[in-house]
């Protein structure tokens, strides 16, 4: 029997989904069009190695971790393949090992996976095209927000300094009183 220690565990990692929605399992993203092809390409021995991989320590190498933590576990929500032992993750980890044995650099391996599975396999949106928005908006918010607040307060302070310690309401009130006084005076 294929032992999948954390298979389900991590695949239901959506945790509260557990009680929120029993449908979660059905909602697992279907692999992108290229994925099945990738799965069939994976030779059978590699599958075996996947199981043995759990009984090995080759996952400890820092170079491997560096790559594996950038790829998402296809069947979990929120975890990298490094953090997951779901069968799909184990397959991907095996592929990473294979690629590393070919002597490829981190960039090349990441590119290899993006070509196979699409940018979906990366844990953060690629910084290009429409996806730039996901990066630009938060940065803009964090940078422009304080400036905006500072300007607003500064504007208030300018008013404050020009008019002394009086609020707008007080000023309006005062002007109305003066107007009233002028009216009375004039007639």
């Amino acid at each position: 029997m294929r032992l999948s220690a954390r298979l389900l565990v991590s695949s239901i990692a959506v945790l509260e989904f557990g009680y929120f929605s029993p449908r979660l399992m059905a909602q697992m993203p279907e692999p992108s069009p290229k994925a099945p092809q990738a799965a069939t390409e994976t030779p059978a021995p590699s599958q075996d190695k996947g199981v043995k991989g759990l009984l090995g320590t080759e996952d400890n190498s820092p170079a491997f971790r560096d790559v594996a933590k950038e790829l998402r576990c296809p069947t979990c929500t929120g975890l990298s393949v490094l953090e997951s032992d779901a069968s799909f993750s184990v397959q991907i980890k095996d592929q990473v090992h294979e690629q590393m044995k070919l002597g490829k650099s981190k960039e090349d391996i990441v590119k290899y996976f993006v070509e196979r599975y699409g940018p979906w396999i990366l844990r953060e949106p690629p910084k290009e095209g429409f996806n730039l928005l996901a990066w630009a908006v938060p940065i803009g918010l964090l940078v422009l927000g304080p400036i905006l607040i500072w300007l607003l307060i500064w504007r208030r302070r300018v008013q404050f300094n020009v008019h002394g310690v009086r609020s707008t309401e007080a000023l309006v009130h005062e002007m109305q009183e003066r107007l009233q006084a002028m009216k009375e005076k004039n007639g």
Partner: protein
Amino acid sequence: MLANYGFYLIFLCFVCSFYGFVSAIMAAFWRHRRLYNSSKMAMTVTCLSAVSASALLIYAFYQRDYSIAYVAKNSSNDLPPIFTLTAFWSSLEGSHTLWTSLLTIVGAVAVWTGNKDNEHIMPYVAGSIHAVLAWMFYLAITHSDPFVLNLPAPTNGRGMNELLQNIYMAIHPPMLFIGYTTLAVPFAYSIAALVYGDITEGWLKTTRRWTLVSFCFLTAAITLGGRWAYVELGWAGYWAWDPVENSSFMPWLLATALLHCLLVQEKLGHLKRLSLVLGIGAFFMCYVGTFLTRSGVVSSVHSFAESPIGPNYLIYLAGLVLISSAIYAFRAPSILPADTEKVWGVSKESALVVTQFLLLSFAAIIFIGTMFPIVSEAITGQRISVQAPYFNMFAPWVGLGVILGIAVGNLMRYQSDKIPYGKKIILGAIVFAIPVTCFLIYMGDVMSTKKTSSLIAQLVGLYLASWAIGCLFGDLYVKLRDVNFKYGLFFSRSQGYFGGWVAHIGMMIAIIGFLGNYRGMEERVTVHAGENFSFYGYRFEFAKEGIQLRQEHNATLYTAPLKIFRERDGVMIEDAHPAQSKYPTKDQVFNEIAITGNIWHDIYVVLVDFDKIDGKRVTFQININPTVRFVWGAVMMMVLGGLIALFDKFRGNRSRDVVAGAWEVSA
């Protein structure tokens, strides 16, 4: 039989809440007191029958009445008693029932404890809660009826989700739902204030109380959820930024922002409209979260159409936004900005605005991150993932802002651009932070971090957090000196401030705890029975007998006994039993994690795999997780702070000084 009664009760709830909604609106329109009382009664009846329906469902669980589909699906004969109770909310229909029942209780309490100062807006309050309830009961009847029959009744159920058979999952959902439902009260009061066209005398006090209750429950619930992930899922972390976690975090951020906004409103009378918007927004976020998790829209836009509950939630959310913003657009001008002479200045009120900015922009970033895959797929057709690395990119900057805001903002005073003893406190804290940081670095073994950027982030973070703690202590000292160290007087007069102080210290300790994530360590080791290995100053000894079998309740455990010794003095610190468990109703295997260690780091041991034939060869994964216990402790402090602030008798009273009596202290 039971099922029929249950369904009748839920139907009665729907009818009553709908009637309550209509009668409350008419009562408000005609200013008809008895009609309003009738609406109040409708709320009470709704509450009673919803609670009875829940009780019936729980009864069915204990009777193992598998003629009810929900019971058959989520429990089995061998389920232990405690989990038989929690199986009630272990799946969609039950958690919906729990949520609605809690909301009826909150509604009834809110209506019956309505302050006399809020008399004029109470019909609107009741109406808003009734409207939400009516919709939720409609949903319960049409799409998530827990009393659907399953005949003929099977002799055994399918069993509860094994992952949820955990004590944290027993407490977490009810607490989270209490947190969500109590936010309904600030929401109802905000809508009521808008429709009525004014903020009534008792508005602030009531809203503040309920928001604080919600804050305490949400804080505790989010952490319990994290703790559950930590002890149950086996990936050695407690926060993965996944959509479900995010959707419980966003209401927390908004509720916290609301608390700070109410503070400005109380002291100066400014930011009233922002309070109203936040009150509505926080509640809205609870439903956004539920929508995200229940409709399945998170995993793919396409799965959204398949679930019937998704479109319903979407209609509800759209309706909520439309109605709320329409009410706001028409009525907000009648909420007058500030009826005081208080002028805005570069002082504590500005610091509080910065706080709100940070909390809200963090909520916005999380919202964008959570929704972006959906939007991107809908617009470009390309599927992308937004996961932890994205959020971890922005979180430290928000954290930095929070530290600076808490440190300096607490020292500032309202309506004054001078900080009393400012230089002394800030400089003192700079000096104070040096030994504290050194202590933390030494005890936490920070210098062992391998990556330079992580090391720098930790050093800066630890220093600034300890500096902020120094500033907070300095501020407390100054405030105490103002009252000549009369502690009783200080506590009775500044209980709210003190609660906030405790919560802020907790926040700083939590940040120190979060920084530990930068230096976590991980190692996979394969050993034979009787062998031992060393890692991070500990010696791990795997028992000679190899894997052992054990039966616990309904689970079969494959345990790998692992003795952990401290290398320095050879003392055994733990006889750990990491295991894999197998439940009779499922084919999968689950991890039982062994966690030990001290306050500075947890040793987290997962049994990854073992030789199925003789059980003599196993693979462990050992994680060293620094300062995780800081986080748990810090969150308890934050909840404690919230509770202290909650029982401040005078906060929120306009006539505070009258109530409190003359509290001037002679110097």
